[in-house]
């Protein structure tokens, strides 16, 4: 087990190093100079040169890569070109919007998808199954930004139950924060819930036709009991994989939802930084997201080994 874990850890480090090189190279070759962007069209050449010097853009690419990498190792992501404040702080502020949003959306999507998937699978072919699956088909087809606009139209403009967007900050109280995240979380969760419910149903149907379920039934368990005790647990593995993927999607991919609800999250930070050529922020945020995904995978790998003894024995 120790050997297995060490191997996984080594592969994690290599993945991160490779990712850092790819991110740096890709972002550095994008045309556009941050200093020129900031000073606009009336700037004189000497002013641009002065700003480039101030931002440390005149150093060689290799030197900048090394500064960035060595800084990250001690948890320092550098200083944003445009905001001129530490990237750490920028990410620190934003993550308290994006992380809760992703968690709420994930909880919501799981809470909706599980019962729907189970009901549909256990009543396969019934009217309930057909209508629920029809609804999820619609849920998958509807783009989440459009759904978000509809939510705003109904709950913010017409009913006035929620603000149309923005985030007051957790200082204003947990309730105010949660309230601001409610509509975005629903908009983010519903399409994901539809996907999850469909995966849940298919996976459950697959396991229900397995031999061990038939054995359980032959042993005298009722259909419902066999499903609960034997089929469900085994059906969860592909579902959990999807949930893992969805979590990283919701953390990193909420750019559009964050724009519709003008939330100060990581997605909007990346979006703004790309257009302003705040390269160091883009690089660092992308790196952070890569790190999160790689770390989650690392733990998933370890969990697999814990769950499945066969993996441990393999050399």
């Amino acid at each position, binding site marked *: 087990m120790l050997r297995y874990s060490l191997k996984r850890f080594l592969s994690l480090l290599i993945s991160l190093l490779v990712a850092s090189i790819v991110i740096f190279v890709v972002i550095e070759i994008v045309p556009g100079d941050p200093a020129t*962007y900031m000073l606009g069209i009336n*700037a*004189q050449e000497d002013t641009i040169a002065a700003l480039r010097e101030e931002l440390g853009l005149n150093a060689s690419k290799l030197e900048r890569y090394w500064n960035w990498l060595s800084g990250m190792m001690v948890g320092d992501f550098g200083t944003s070109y445009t905001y001129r*404040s530490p990237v750490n702080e920028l990410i620190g502020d934003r993550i308290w919007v994006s992380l809760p949003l992703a968690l709420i959306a994930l909880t919501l999507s799981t809470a909706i998808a599980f019962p729907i998937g189970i009901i549909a699978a256990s009543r396969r072919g019934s009217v309930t199954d057909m209508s629920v699956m029809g609804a999820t088909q619609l849920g998958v087809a509807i783009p989440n930004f459009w759904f978000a606009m509809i939510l705003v139209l109904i709950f913010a403009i017409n009913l006035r139950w929620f603000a*149309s967007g923005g985030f007051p900050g957790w200082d204003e109280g947990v309730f105010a924060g949660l309230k601001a995240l409610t509509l975005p979380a629903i908009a983010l969760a519903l399409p994901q819930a539809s996907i999850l419910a469909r995966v849940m149903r298919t996976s459950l149907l697959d396991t229900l036709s397995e031999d061990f379920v038939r054995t359980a039934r032959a042993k005298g368990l009722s259909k419902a009991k066999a499903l609960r005790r034997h089929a469900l647990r085994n059906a969860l593995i592909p579902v959990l994989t999807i949930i893992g993927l969805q979590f990283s999607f919701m953390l990193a991919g909420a750019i559009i939802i964050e724009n519709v609800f003008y939330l100060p999250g990581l997605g909007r930070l990346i979006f703004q930084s790309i257009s302003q050529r705040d390269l160091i922020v883009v690089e660092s945020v992308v790196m952070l997201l890569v790190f999160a995904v790689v770390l989650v995978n690392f733990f998933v790998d370890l969990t697999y080994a814990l769950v499945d003894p066969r993996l441990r024995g393999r050399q």
Partner: protein
Amino acid sequence: MKFTSKLAFAASALALSVSAAWADSGEISVGMALEPPHLDPTSAAAGAIDQVLYANVFQGLTRFASDGSIIPGLAESWTISDDGLTYVFQLRHGVKFHDGTDFDASHVVFSLDRARAEDSTNAQKALFADIASVKTGDHYSVIVTLSKPNGSLLFNLAWGDAVIVSPESIDTIKEKPIGTGPFRFVEWVKGDRIELERTPDYSWGDQVALDKVTFRFISDPTAAFAAVMSEDVDVFPVFPAPENLAQFDADPRFQVLVGSTEGETILSTNNKLPPLDDVRVRKAIAHAIDRKAIIDGAMFGFGTPIGTHFAPHNPAYLDLTGNSAYDPEMSKSLLAEAGLADGFTTTLKLPPPSYARRGGEIIAAQLREVGINVEISNLEWAQWLEQVFRGKDFGLTIVSHTEPMDIGIYARPDYYFQYDNPEFQALITELNAEAKADKRTELLHKAQTMISEDYVNGYLFQLAATGVANAKLQGLWVNAPTQATDLTGVSWAE
């Protein structure tokens, strides 16, 4: 020559008495599409910085009024020597920075010297190019000496890039701006909002009606629409989606504000790239463009056609739209004259704003009618600056030049459209040195005519300032003589 500020004061006092009866809620929430990158107006070109801070938090020696005229700011009055080389500014007494420091002449010397220093990162450093020295007279007077006469000095000092800052605040100015204005900075929640509050002991200018101002950053046009409709923001001074304005106009809860800006929107032309270096070809392009169709199609009817690089609301404006009237037949014969009867192909590189993207499609179609084939490519701003603006790698592009009174850019042969005309350059040198108003107007007329007749660029339209606000708000700027959201005269009606 002495200028007293009585008249300007009278005007603003009048505006105040109208708004004296403001409602109990002295708070306002302002929507903006772009967030400032940082909060130092003296070291970035981003208009969003001035849109939050100009006149509200920071003040300069002079300032823009909403009609574009220059009125006293921190300088109460000034005298100009007969040779036009020495300006003596008398400063307002009793002014304090928001950190409690007393404002005096040393702050003006510091601010102007910092802006024109060797290692300055001021985006408009050229504004200060003719200043030879800045010295304190006494505690409350400043002597500015020029190396050559510059009739635009008072105008230049009104820019957001020329506001007065305090030396103690420089290290943290990008995060925590400290100025002398009627509002002081409270908090910046990055990505979400900036909060200002009324300066408690503000006694050196007109009193303001609002207690608290929140700027909210909403980049998505649909989200902006929702924020106004749900009354989460009270005013959106530069509303990003002109297509929604008619709907706001029909709703009694809102008022739509349509004014003029300093943005000359032009079809910039690479004057060095064949065949665009031929004036007949540029003239053919000018006559191939139907300005009305572009304004209606790309700007939903908001905008004023122009025939030269000058703002129509300026008293010195000359209507030269006749020089480039829509006449496709004339275009075709001009092209034939230039030996291009079969037309030609060039590039049209478009930056992100909708005037460029939507306008570009329409212009491409109009040019195709006369046989000019353009290849459209859409660029981000950073790419545009690199390829088009600095690299000069383009045939045509569409951009709005939002700097006030910027006809002088045509005197810079290395400027991206590369118009190199010594006659025009001499004219601008003469203009810069001229302080007499009527003589300046005459020179400005000459300059406008010259670039119009040389068809340097395709002159399209003056960008309109289109905003939307709660119907009960009064005192908002309708025109945008500079990028600013001046809230000093804004109040709620009963």
